[in-house]
């Protein structure tokens, strides 16, 4: 390529460092968000898979149990009577430590040799201690280092609400210490003691020959399952799929905003140089050369921005991975991730997106620049004319994309990917319509502003007259603002829907529950007499019980909500459609169940359909009596009456008691009375008032959306930079015009006011255009994306403060962007700026 051309391009970038750097920063932020989200997602998945793999060891199969686990007698039977030599019993539980959750795994080291090799370096004394001394554990070396623990020290933890000092006798290293992060390994007897579950196993690992599988499956008692470990991990990972896809899409949204920014910058850099470019063309530079040099410019910025973005992404990911892990812990399963697992693919993805989007965004301006004729390019008015003529066509294209996006949304079934592509099509279509809108709006405002001051008329006219720039700026600014607005409307709507749901679901005044230590499948039950003790208090009107256990549904594991209502005034459920008329009698009898909306959506079930569940008494065919709203689990819930559960699973335990107080009784006074009544039992309990439980649930909700908020803030950051760079370019590009004004007697102060007025107006326009798009986006996010991802319906809200915030963001960014050009214009001598003429 022509060195001279290249130098001119570089020189141009140098002379406009603000523009160049803002663009680079925009690309960098976009890439950073994508890379960070991908890294956080992948790290969480990898950490899960690696630790699952290391805990599974060489097991080909696993026997898993229902809510009551596996009776340990089965293990003896398998090993001694069925002579299955390669079997290992596992007890699992959770241990809490200052807000962190560690996984406690109990093993029989004598049966482990075929499966896992966790530790090679135990000396005889430590090995004996492991087998003999209660509360002795091995702790992941990484976790120990993080907690500053040495072997031989005690670790104070809470297990099912009880304070326990664990003796760390040695550290777990393994081949890859990182996968053991958050793991406590104990002898099986220690684990049973700590988790208070004598006689119970949570899992039996097996190495089976193919010919043994069938016989074993047939011989297993009802309620137990023979599974392949990988499929178990897969089911676990599927639980977080929707959550992670959503995060990835949010990050793409940030990149989309970034793309607009790049497009904007490139277009301006072409527009600003149209004189130079035309001159070059006159001098004999070919179109191809011009095109190439402009693309090269874009590539340079893209490379720089991408590199910066990767670095930034790694930094953000460190923080993001904690948020992702916390959400997974809050909503799905226990997972400890403290290490970023950087996969080359993620970085490659970041590079491709960064460079690809930059090139794509630069393509149109480059074609434009290469395509203009030498003469016409010199004349500015020609350009504006062409833009004006093209407006209807661009608008038409936008309309087509908008309609296409809408159609795509309605025809893409349940596909989440379809939902997101439809959303992006709508955004693109809308942004193409914006310049037309700007033209109409400016014409309208010029007419109504006729009686305003000269300065105002100048400002208004300026926007309409420079549509090639203002249209673009307003479009990119409004997309950026709309993205943040859409996400914020969605969150606000979701939050208020959940708050509303909690208000009618939580019908009791006080909730008493056991503190759980189970890793999965079931929560800890209260002592059997608990309900009676509470019920007998004079303050108490009625009690209900609840429990959540994981059972095997027709499509894999599903949470079962086991309820025993206070009375027959069944409250706490709201139904999507009218439930079956005899629902509550059928529910109490145990031949009808309720399913939650996400479950119904996921498996295409409705009121009156039938459902088959695997129980300890064999499989059970039940009628769905109603579909209720639920926001507690995106995997869905099935609700069964306590009497039916007791019948089919032989388990009368309950995990929480809901207490309805006599009229006029203060919850705090009643709580004290209940505490007193239950002091005799040494079980550790949670006592929560309705208010506290609601606040607690909302706190989890907010924690879940913390990551979305972070992404939204990042998108705002990108948008802000976009606005800044677009408007600054707009103003700087008009320096000659402004010099002319100075020369004709406009004072620097007036000029500054004019500039700020104009950028403020552009910001205003952008804010206005962002409102419909933001609302549209929120509707798509609520009605399409959330539904497809999680299966729940959210009641839309239009929060005025979010709208206000969006407008403010647009205007504030615009004003800020006007400051520098205004300041510069106030200083530059008009003669100097005009010399070109």
């Amino acid at each position, binding site marked *: 390529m022509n060195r001279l051309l290249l130098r001119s391009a570089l020189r141009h970038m140098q002379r406009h460092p603000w523009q160049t750097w803002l663009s680079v920063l925009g690309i960098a932020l976009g890439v950073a968000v994508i890379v960070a989200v991908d890294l956080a997602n992948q790290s969480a998945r990898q950490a899960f898979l690696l630790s699952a793999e290391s805990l599974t060891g060489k097991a080909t199969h696993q026997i898993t149990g229902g809510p009551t686990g596996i009776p340990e007698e089965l293990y003896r039977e398998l*090993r001694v009577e069925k002579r299955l030599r390669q079997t290992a019993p596992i007890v699992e539980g959770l241990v809490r430590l200052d807000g962190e959750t560690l996984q406690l795994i109990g093993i029989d080291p004598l049966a482990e040799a075929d499966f896992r090799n966790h530790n090679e370096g135990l000396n005889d004394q430590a090995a004996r201690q492991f087998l003999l001394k209660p509360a002795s554990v091995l702790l992941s070396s990484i976790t120990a280092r993080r907690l500053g623990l040495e072997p031989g020290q005690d670790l104070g933890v809470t297990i099912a609400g009880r304070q326990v000092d664990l003796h760390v006798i040695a550290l777990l290293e393994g081949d890859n210490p990182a996968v053991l992060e958050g793991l406590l390994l104990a002898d099986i007897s*220690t684990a049973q003691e700590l988790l208070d579950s004598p006689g119970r196993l949570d899992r039996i690992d097996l190495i089976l020959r193919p010919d043994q599988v069938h016989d074993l499956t047939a011989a297993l008692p009802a309620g137990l399952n023979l599974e392949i470990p990988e499929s178990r991990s897969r089911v676990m990972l599927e639980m977080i799929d929707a959550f992670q896809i959503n995060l990835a899409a949010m990050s793409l949204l940030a990149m989309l905003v970034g793309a607009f920014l790049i497009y904007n910058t490139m277009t301006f850099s072409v527009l600003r140089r149209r004189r130079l470019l035309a001159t070059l063309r006159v001098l004999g530079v070919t179109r191809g050369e011009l095109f190439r040099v402009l693309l090269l410019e874009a590539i340079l910025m893209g490379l720089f921005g991408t590199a910066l973005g990767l670095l930034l992404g790694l930094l953000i990911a460190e923080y993001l991975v904690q948020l992702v892990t916390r959400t997974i812990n809050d909503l799905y399963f226990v997972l400890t991730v403290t290490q970023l697992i950087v996969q080359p693919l993620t970085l490659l993805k970041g590079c491709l997106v960064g460079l690809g989007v930059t090139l794509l965004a630069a393509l149109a301006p480059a074609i434009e620049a290469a395509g203009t004729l030498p003469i016409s390019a010199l004349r500015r008015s020609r350009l504006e004319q062409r833009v004006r003529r093209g407006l209807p066509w661009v608008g038409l294209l936008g309309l087509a994309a908008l309609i296409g996006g809408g159609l795509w949304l309605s025809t893409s079934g349940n596909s989440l990917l379809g939902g997101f592509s439809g959303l992006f099509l709508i955004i693109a279509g809308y942004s193409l319509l914006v310049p037309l809108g700007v033209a109409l709006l400016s014409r309208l405002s010029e007419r109504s502003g006729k009686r305003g001051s000269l300065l105002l008329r100048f400002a208004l006219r300026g926007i309409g007259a420079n549509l090639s720039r203002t249209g673009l700026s307003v479009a990119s600014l409004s997309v950026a603002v709309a993205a943040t607005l859409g996400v914020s409307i969605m969150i606000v709507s979701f939050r208020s829907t959940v708050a509303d749901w909690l208000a009618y679901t939580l019908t009791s005044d006080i909730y008493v529950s056991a503190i759980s230590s189970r890793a999965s499948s079931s929560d800890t039950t209260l002592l059997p007499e608990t309900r009676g003790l509470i019920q007998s208090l004079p303050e108490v009107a009625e009690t209900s019980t609840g429990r959540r256990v994981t059972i095997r549904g027709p499509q894999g594991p599903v949470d079962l909500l086991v309820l025993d209502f206070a009375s027959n005034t069944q409250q706490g459920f709201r139904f999507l459609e009218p439930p079956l008329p005899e629902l509550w009698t059928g529910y109490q009898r145990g031949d009808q169940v309720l399913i939650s909306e996400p479950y119904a959506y996921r498996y295409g079930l409705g009121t009156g359909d039938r459902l088959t569940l695997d129980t300890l008494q064999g499989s059970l065919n039940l009628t769905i009596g109603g579909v209720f709203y639920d926001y507690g689990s995106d995997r869905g819930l099935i609700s069964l009456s306590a009497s039916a559960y007791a019948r089919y699973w032989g388990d009368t335990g309950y995990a929480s008691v809901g207490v309805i107080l006599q009229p006029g009784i203060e919850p705090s006074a009643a709580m004290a009375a209940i505490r007193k009544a239950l002091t005799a039992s040494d079980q550790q309990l949670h006592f929560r008032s309705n208010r506290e439980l609601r606040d607690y649930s909302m706190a989890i909700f907010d924690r879940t959306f913390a990551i979305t908020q972070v992404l939204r803030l990042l998108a705002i950051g990108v948008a802000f930079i976009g606005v800044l760079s677009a408007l600054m370019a707009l103003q700087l590009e008009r320096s000659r015009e402004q010099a002319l004004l100075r020369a004709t007697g406009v004072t620097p102060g007036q000029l500054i006011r004019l500039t700020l007025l104009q950028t403020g107006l552009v910001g205003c326009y952008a804010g206005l255009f962002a409102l419909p798009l933001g609302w549209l986006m929120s509707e798509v996010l609520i009605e399409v994306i959330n539904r497809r991802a999680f299966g729940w319906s959210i009641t839309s809200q239009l929060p005025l403060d979010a709208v206000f915030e969006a407008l403010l963001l647009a205007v504030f960014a615009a004003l800020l962007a006007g400051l520098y050009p205004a300041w510069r214009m106030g200083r530059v001598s008009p003669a100097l700026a005009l010399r070109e003429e």
Partner: protein
Amino acid sequence: MYRLAWLLLLLLSACDTSDTEPESWQVAEALGGVDDAGFARATAPRVFHFPRDHGPHPAFRNEWWYLTGHLQTPDGRAYGYQVTLFRIAMQADPIISPSAWRSNQIWMGHAALSDLQAERHVAFERFARQGAGLAGGQSAPLRIWLEDWQLQLDAEARWQLRIATEAFNLDLELIAESPIILQGDQGLSQKSDAAGNASYYYSIPRLASQGTLRQAGEAMQVAGLSWLDREWSTSALGPEQAGWDWFSLHLQDGRNLMYYQLRQKDGSIDPLSAGSVSNRAGMQQILNAERIQLTPLAYWESDGKHYPVEWRMKLRDEPQPWRIKALFTDQEMRLSVRYWEGAIEVREESSKRLLGKGYLEMTGYE
């Protein structure tokens, strides 16, 4: 007699070197270096009560039930077998726990079969803790089991051995043909001068054995002669001892010979090496290092360990020296601990006349 102690010492050293497969981590470690404190000691001769004393003595640290024997099928195929069930306490006090898995006792089992025609030896090992129904022992009626390996004694004084491994299943009924022989001083087998450094040790040298051997889907009737050794103790071996050679012989004239030779690290023979010769009636003569002379004649090497697989044995009271020879060389137990235990025959050295068959165990060879 110090069989187990040796095994444990070897287990420990086997774990330090990484040339063996890391079998059941912790097992080996957990069994070694156990403190003597709190355990009962064998300090004086005791009165044995049978069948009660066939059962476990958990107050002592270690205990084992040791069966070796030669078996033949009706068509003349010959096998040797060894089955040992070890009980090992990791601490003296039993532990009270709601969990059935918490136990101070661990059981270890070794089972080996030597196909004497094919010269093929297979060996298997099991570990399980006492508890959760996986392993344990009771004396009335006698039942010792480690998962699906089991030794029982019924009311008609019939012993029942059931062993199932990946390569063979062995079901045997054993009936004592000779009385119980109390080894050492009325069953107290002194290890060193220090009081309590001894074990209680008895044998049933001759057990008529018959049953079924299943191998590769084929079930064979087998019959032959077995030897049962029973021993329990607490104290461990001294550091100066390097290994030992244990012989058990069924002689065709009806006598049974047991002798263990303790080798010191300096190459000398420990004067505490001992044994006995008994006849069908249970008449017993004590053997000690002065009454017997053992000379290794030929060695077989396995991974740097040189096992003497051919011996000259000269008893003071016998006119002719005997030649003892492994029926084939590779009968090494390559388990958590490596040792050699296999079928042997004994011939008169001069005439090469077959005098009997037996088993030989050799440990501590480098």
